[in-house]
């Protein structure tokens, strides 16, 4: 068993997926161990909920087990394909619950975040709380773009491929996300709680159009 595990660990992604395709449980275990951390973090950042993120992870690896043949190594890296599955499942989850952003009452949520003494928030400073709130308030596409590029370390092009959008659309989402977060961080009073976004969020600046 140990010998087999050693062999599996040395495998390339293609060999590993071929083994998974052949029903090799050791290969599947190696695959899960290699990618669980990144996939779960990505799902959590997009969904903002630990339990939902855990469900998405389980579903992601289940799909890999059931349809390993769907990965096309010539088209994308294994990690990119895994993130694509995860991203699509997250988007489906958000749509299922009909929540583009997962904050129903921004004003209340913001006040609660600032007052929060939950264990997960206890070590956070006001700055962290503000940014966490800002991240939660972002529309799904912006939050996903930021998650994939900032947290998961994908290039803009790879993130666009995962989200199945054009590079231009991805970069526009990224710019808007960072702009909104910067405003939330520097001046939270600018947040328009009716929409949940900084007041000039919806304005398409001419600068962005000309420079992108």
């Amino acid at each position, binding site marked *: 068993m140990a010998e087999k595990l050693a062999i599996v660990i040395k495998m390339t992604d*293609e060999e590993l*997926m*071929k083994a998974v*395709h052949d*029903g090799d*449980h050791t290969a*599947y*275990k190696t695959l*899960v*161990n290699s990618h*669980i*951390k990144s996939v*779960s*973090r990505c799902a*959590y950042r997009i969904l903002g909920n*630990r339990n939902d*993120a*855990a469900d998405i*992870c*389980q579903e992601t*690896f*289940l799909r890999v*087990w*059931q349809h390993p*043949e769907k*990965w*096309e*190594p*010539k088209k994308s890296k294994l990690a990119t394909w895994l993130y694509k599955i995860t991203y699509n499942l997250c988007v489906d989850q958000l749509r299922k619950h009909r929540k583009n952003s997962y904050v129903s009452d921004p004003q209340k949520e913001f006040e609660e975040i600032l007052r929060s003494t939950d264990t*997960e*928030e206890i*070590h*956070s400073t006001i*700055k*962290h709380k503000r*940014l*966490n709130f800002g*991240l939660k308030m972002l529309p799904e596409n912006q939050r996903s773009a930021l998650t994939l*590029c*900032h*947290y998961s370390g994908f290039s*803009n092009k790879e993130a666009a491929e995962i989200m199945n959008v054009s590079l231009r659309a991805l*970069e526009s989402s*990224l*710019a*808007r996300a*960072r*702009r909104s*977060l*910067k405003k939330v*961080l*520097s001046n939270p009073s600018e947040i328009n709680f009716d929409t949940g976004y900084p007041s000039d969020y919806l304005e398409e600046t001419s*600068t*962005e159009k000309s*420079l*992108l």
Partner: protein
Amino acid sequence: MNIKQLTLTFEVYGSQPEGWPIDKVEEIYDLLKTNSDAISLKKEFDEMDQTLNELYLPNFDNLTQQILDRQLPQRNSNLATDLLNWIWPAHPSIRLFWRPISAAALPLLFGVFLGNYFSFGINYESSDSEYWAEELTILALIDNYGEDL
């Protein structure tokens, strides 16, 4: 490059140099050397990136075990699927060359099939070889066959 362009570059590519487009790196560094607004802008974006990195992440330690402990479903398999997979392997590395070969061979197989069942107006019966017995009899009856030669 001006401040507006630098702001947009940070918004799109982040504040870390490794994310910047190669053709813009030099211009950005030049601006950062000479412009105090550019320096404070980079600080703001750096601070935001730093804060983003420090945001809370829940513990997913048990998740790996939960996934591995889960009973994996049997893949849908029956005789027909197995036969199809044997004829037409679905694994990416194999199907890369096997599928084009199969696709290229299809017209050939179709041609063989058609040729086997239809004559397309070509009359094979005109061949003399099918009447060799009759011809031999006629030749035997001709007395002077070969004498004129």
